[in-house]
């Protein structure tokens, strides 16, 4: 039975999660980005049908139908694999905002994985940009998080609803600063009345796509 616990709600645990750390935002790229990569696979799935329609008579005439069906099955196995390869890369490319930090995980092929993190107290500036008609219509864009004292920006690529995410990250960062008792790294913005995400729910709030 312990095996099936894998499939139950894990409260968004991740490698290196600290004690008392709560996931406030969990982000992936917009689904449209995935769809772009999937299009070729979906179109490819139609190929055996087309070939059969075009050369079906020849295959029957030379009794090659069984061999063709075998090739069809192997071709679908390949497509199945490619489909899940892209899905895996998409799913493992995440941005997690917790009550302590931002964790950026990126899987680049099977044998290369990058994980970077940024303390909420070091957030200096958050900005986003949407580029292109599709991104504007589908409401996705890139979000830059500039940290104090670091050259490298934290870049959230093609995330859904970047405006809401930006506001949320600002709120979370201000809340973290307020709790730490120091001066605000966000340029002295008024912090009154801001409520930072629920702390008791099991799933982090989602940003509508």
């Amino acid at each position, binding site marked *: 039975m312990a095996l099936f616990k*894998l*499939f*139950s*709600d*894990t409260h*968004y*645990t*991740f*490698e290196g999660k600290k004690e008392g750390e709560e996931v406030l935002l*969990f982000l992936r790229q917009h689904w449209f980005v995935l769809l772009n990569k999937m299009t070729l696979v979906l179109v490819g799935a139609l190929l055996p049908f087309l070939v059969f329609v075009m050369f079906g008579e020849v295959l029957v005439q030379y009794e090659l139908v*069984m*061999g063709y*069906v*075998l090739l069809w*099955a*192997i071709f*679908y*196995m390949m497509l*199945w*694999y490619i489909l*899940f*390869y892209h*899905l*895996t890369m998409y*799913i*493992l490319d*995440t941005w*997690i905002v917790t009550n302590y930090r931002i964790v950026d*995980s990126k*899987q680049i092929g*099977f044998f290369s*994985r990058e994980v970077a993190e940024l303390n909420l107290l070091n957030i200096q500036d958050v900005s986003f940009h949407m580029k292109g008609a599709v991104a504007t219509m589908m409401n996705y864009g890139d979000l830059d998080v500039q940290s104090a004292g670091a050259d490298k920006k934290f870049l959230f690529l093609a995330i859904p609803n970047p405006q809401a995410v930006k506001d949320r990250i600002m709120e979370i960062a201000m809340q973290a600063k307020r709790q730490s008792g120091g001066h605000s790294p966000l340029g002295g913005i008024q912090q009154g009345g801001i409520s930072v995400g629920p702390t008791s729910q099991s799933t982090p709030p989602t940003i509508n796509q």
Partner: protein
Amino acid sequence: MQPDAINSFISLIFVFAMLVYWTGAFLIFYHLIRFGVGAGPKKLSAVFLGGSLVFTLIAMLLFGQIIS
């Protein structure tokens, strides 16, 4: 080349292709289970495993029929 030798050669290629596929399948399964955050990736890995088993079974049955 004798027909038996040809059959053996084709069978060998088929087995090799399956080994390559299942090595790759293991990598996908492993990454989704180990690095996936939340229950979603685990469920997805189960779907992938189920589909891979079905496709392998179909391919093996068809190959068996052709080779025999």
